[in-house]
């Protein structure tokens, strides 16, 4: 048997696909996006929208009600559940989730997910102002194994703090965690929920990419910001991993890949280690060395 026959299809089966309307539309959509800075493209909850949502949430809290609709079999899950924090509606192959009060007790979110048949853990996590209310996850800490898939899709326009679709396989039994973004206190570290995007920049009007550590650090200090450091390793298999390190691991002449706010008053520099740094560490060791928001208490 030729291993090639194990493939579902060959490239030849896809001849002409690049010129389909769908492929062209995707390309147009991609190039219509501003190229830099890249890091904020997925963030959909502007602060103004979040404030309005908080106001709506406050009204709903005043009413203090939760509504479940469409209970099927006795004890079975509802098709729609709403409380002061969130509304969840079950569709054929996904759940519509509308977050109205990101500051609510996580228990209110868990209660709503449970009511529609999803036994998940919800944590509120500190995020930058423009991410307040964002639904983060679903995360499967043990690693997701199919069949099926899990994910979240933002839906716009949205009159609440967050509107989106969530899907995961029916009766999925693994531990699933969602985060709800809450406004971080001044100086409180943000939950680190996204992979670093090469070229991402934290500062308006300043590109750290390609500068030395010393130059970028001077600029941050000039702006009265604290500096954090991450080594941005290229792995032997072509992947990347970033590793939080202390200042003494840095060399002034190493080159910065990009930067990201790690709290309101701190910017982390993502630095490409020079040859003297030695080989890249095992990515799993790096991953396990840092606490993750979905594993923390609260």
């Amino acid at each position: 048997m030729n291993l090639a026959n194990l493939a579902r299809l060959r490239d030849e089966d896809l001849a002409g696909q690049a010129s389909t309307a769908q492929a062209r539309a995707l390309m147009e959509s991609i190039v219509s996006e501003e190229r830099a800075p890249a890091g904020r493209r997925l963030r959909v909850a502007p602060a103004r929208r979040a404030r309005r949502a908080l106001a709506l949430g406050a009204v709903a809290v005043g009413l203090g009600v939760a509504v479940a609709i469409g209970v099927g079999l006795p004890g079975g899950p509802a098709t729609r559940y709403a409380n002061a924090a969130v509304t969840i509606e079950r569709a054929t192959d996904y759940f519509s989730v509308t977050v109205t009060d990101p500051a609510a007790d996580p228990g209110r979110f868990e209660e709503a997910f449970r009511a529609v048949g999803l036994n998940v853990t919800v944590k509120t996590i500190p995020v930058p102002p423009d991410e307040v209310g964002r639904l983060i996850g679903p995360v499967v800490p043990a690693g997701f194994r199919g069949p099926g898939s899990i994910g979240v899709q933002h839906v716009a326009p949205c009159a609440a703090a967050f509107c989106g679709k969530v899907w995961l396989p029916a009766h999925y039994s693994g531990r699933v965690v969602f985060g709800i973004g809450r406004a971080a206190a001044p100086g409180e570290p943000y939950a680190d929920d996204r992979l670093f995007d090469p070229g991402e920049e934290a500062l308006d009007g300043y590109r750290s990419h390609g500068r030395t550590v010393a130059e970028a650090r001077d600029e941050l200090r000039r702006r009265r910001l604290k500096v954090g450091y991450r080594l941005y390793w290229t792995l032997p298999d072509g992947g990347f991993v970033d590793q939080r390190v202390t200042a003494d691991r840095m060399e002034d002449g190493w080159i910065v890949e990009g930067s990201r706010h790690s709290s309101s008053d701190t910017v982390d520099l993502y630095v490409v280690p020079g040859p003297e740094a030695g080989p890249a560490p095992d990515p799993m060791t790096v991953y396990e060395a840092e606490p993750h928001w979905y594993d923390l208490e609260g």
Partner: protein
Amino acid sequence: MGADPHGRFADVYERAYEPILGYVLRRCRDPEDAADVVAETFTVAWRRIDELPEGDEARLWLYGVARRVLANHRRGELRREQRAEALREHLASLPAVTHTRSPEEDFSPIGRVFRALPDGDRELLSLVAWERLDTRQLAAALGISRNAVRIRLYRARRRFARALATAGVDHPHAAILEGSSL
């Protein structure tokens, strides 16, 4: 490098779209997820257009990006984006996809053994058998030296042959990799 990023991206997209779509569809059970992986892969390419290599190297570079996006997807980090909506529907109805089974559904003894290989071995052998990459191209796609490719490929072939023997597929020549037996 071309001065016009739009023109350059359109050129790369035109030439690499089908190979990247094929790469993703061969590794993704769900065509709708494949649409999101393809969209994310080319979005990364657009944002990093200044780093995109010239000529066919761009395709190899994109395999590397697609591989990482797929890895994120397997960790449950794939995000559904509006821009992939039409492509999701299109792929879900594509006969080349719907009328063929994904590798996960191949229950032949060789298919089972192949699926049970360590991820790195399986990906390396797949890049040879499915994307038909040679040693130089593998080195470019994986960002490692040709020598490292040769060593890894040798080990992966050996492990595959041993696993086949353990599974009772007596004859190692039962599995052919790009014209040569293991």
